[in-house]
């Protein structure tokens, strides 16, 4: 960020008198606002798309009366939620009750910082990118648990406990399934991971096709991540038909709105990680977007990245509207008995592969064979 600030100061002589730290701070705020706007827009549109997709899958139409073709539905929902009465139940723990939605929202929003949207489009290219995402998304579980506890409602409590157990269990397979990408790139930075999948192999440069283990990793990650974002078939913390509405049962108005938005934020983060780590991120097949002028290269790579990520989100929605829900013991069994051992075996496989074949993937080997 500081480097960017220096180049900005150099480029715009008008800023010469302003201290560097102020420019940096200003830049940070601007970037934060841009990302917040993007996140909110995505989350709003996401909810609309979810309803449209649900409509399509369920032989319905979905929202089409509010604005042209229902496009303003999320705006109406948002305004309504903001203006709704904010109820805090009499026996709730007021402080924790108020705090919980922010934990959840911040946990999902903060992860946007390291998402590599394009060649140069990343708010902060942290050298511990993946680690950072895993860490901040863990805030969500604290928020959910707080919400469940503070509501003083037994359904909410059950939902909160389920969420805590579930997210803690699935963090492990999620992390383990992402490590192969880290191993291949040799870096925790998401930007490095994306760059490692470039080159002239086209889509075969993606980690997905690197070797059989990474291929498998992707599906393990996707399954575990589906669970981490509380999507059906793993939506036990909310489980409408069992726990009424789970941990957010007592929340109304904008506080519920924050939970609602965070859900879509989480969805996007999962899709973005899957894209960055396995599907080549912003890499345009057979083409290096970095060679284009800054603005066009970034726009192109942004388009590619969002296209891939949204496809993943759509698949998640599709799964969500298709499958029934697991029971809580089956959920735990699935994580600890199947996903965790499989991801470990998989990690071992990837490591051995990299060791034996000197880091070369199958497509690269075929390419070198063919000359």
């Amino acid at each position: 960020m500081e480097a960017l600030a220096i180049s900005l100061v150099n480029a715009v002589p008008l800023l010469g008198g302003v201290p560097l730290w102020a420019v940096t701070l200003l830049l940070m705020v601007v970037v934060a606002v841009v990302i917040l706007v993007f996140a909110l827009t995505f989350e709003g549109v996401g909810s609309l798309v979810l309803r449209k997709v649900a409509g399509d899958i369920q032989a319905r139409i979905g929202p089409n009366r509010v604005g042209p073709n229902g496009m303003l539905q999320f705006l109406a929902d948002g305004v309504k939620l903001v203006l709704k009465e904010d109820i805090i139940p009499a026996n709730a723990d007021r402080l924790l009750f108020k705090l919980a939605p922010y934990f959840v929202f911040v946990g999902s929003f903060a992860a946007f910082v390291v998402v590599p949207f394009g060649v140069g489009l990343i708010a902060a290219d942290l050298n511990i990118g993946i680690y950072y995402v895993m860490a901040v998304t863990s805030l969500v579980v604290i928020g959910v648990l707080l919400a469940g506890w503070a509501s003083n409602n037994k359904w909410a409590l059950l939902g909160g406990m389920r969420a805590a157990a579930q997210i803690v269990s699935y963090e492990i397979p999620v992390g383990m399934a992402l490590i192969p990408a880290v191993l291949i790139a040799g870096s925790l930075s998401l930007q490095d991971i994306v760059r490692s999948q470039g080159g002239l192999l086209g889509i075969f440069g993606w980690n997905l096709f690197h070797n059989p283990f990474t291929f498998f990793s992707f599906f393990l990650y996707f399954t575990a991540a589906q669970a981490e974002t509380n999507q059906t078939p793993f939506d036990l913390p909310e489980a409408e038909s069992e726990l009424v509405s789970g941990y957010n049962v007592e929340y109304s108005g904008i506080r519920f709105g924050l939970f609602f938005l965070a859900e879509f934020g989480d969805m996007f983060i999962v899709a973005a990680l899957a894209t960055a780590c396995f599907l080549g991120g912003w890499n345009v097949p057979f083409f290096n977007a970095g060679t284009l002028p800054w603005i066009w290269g970034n726009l192109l790579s942004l388009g590619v990245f969002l296209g891939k990520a949204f496809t993943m989100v759509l698949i998640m929605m599709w799964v969500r509207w298709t499958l029934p829900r697991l029971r809580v013991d089956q959920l735990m069994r699935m994580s600890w008995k199947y996903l965790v051992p499989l991801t470990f075996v998989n990690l071992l496989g990837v490591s051995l592969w990299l060791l034996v074949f000197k880091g070369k993937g199958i497509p690269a080997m075929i390419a070198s064979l063919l000359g």
Partner: protein
Amino acid sequence: MTIRTDALPTQEMTINMGPQHPSTHGVLRVILTTDGEVVTRAVPDVGYLHRGLEKIGERVTYAQYMPFTDRLDYLAAMNCNCAWAWTVEKLAKIEVPERAEFLRVIVCELNRISSHLIAFGSYTADMGAFTPFLYAIRERERVNDLFEMLCGSRLTYNYARVGGVSADAPPGFLEKSKEFLDYFEPKLDEYNNLISYNKIFVHRLANVAVIPAEEAVAYGLTGPNLRGSGVPFDLRKDEPYSVYPKFDFKVCVGTGERGTLGDCFDRYMVRINEMRESAKIVRQALAQIPDGPVLAKVPRLFKPPVGEAYFRSECPRGETGIYLISDGSVNPFRLKIRTGSFVTMNIFEKVTRGLMIADVVAVIGSFDIILPEIDR
């Protein structure tokens, strides 16, 4: 569950499920005592929809009671209409024209299909898959269209009459029914592909709330819930009424195909298979339906002879038995309706012991209860 009590003081939690809860199928209230997620006791509390149908029966005439039978089981109003008509006819020994009986069988079986569709759909929704529910309702709309053609109503039909049915089938009804069956029968395979044999779905239902055959009989279960335990008892076959003996159909029983005999999955599959059998009956009835009048001559001021009759008919939720006492006046003297759901709720507390909260939902769904039948 062996927790050292001295090490960790724990306490059971009492949770109130309902009367407003998404998966209690109406206003059922269950008081759950749980140890974490494990239910130690689930006591049903019913009566939130008690509308006094039996008392009303003593204050209106026999013909006036017909609309109230619609509200007895609104998902299978035709079956209840016909059950009432058959009961009164049994008491007063009225001959019903054959065409009317055929029409009754056709509408009863169509209604059984639409009722089982809701059972299937809401069950999958309870299990977290919301989409099949909407598919089921899409199909149900077609049955509603048929009934609307027949009697102008979508849900509460008031179609049967003492001595026959209110009106003959309008032109095109029989053909449309056949069209519906042609459309509907392949859909059942689609449902099976979509959800019935889905691995998660099977795991949720198999081996949950197993009811052995003897227990099912002792607790008075009837209909699909009894057949799910492997007891091949169907009033349409075993105590034939109306024109059912003319048709060839199979009594569907649970087979324990994915778990233990008598579990939730068996009860679910019985309903799916029964829809197929009902379609078969309707096809045969459509082919054999004779011409003729549809309403016997019944005096306007109808007074049945003094006597008592108990008539049992096979409704989608088990046996609906109507115990009717007449003192020779225009009103019934006493009317008692025995319904499948009410009797089924009796076993609820027993089978839910030791299950998880999610399983309680599965059990409620697998019994396919409906609240007006429980509360009347």
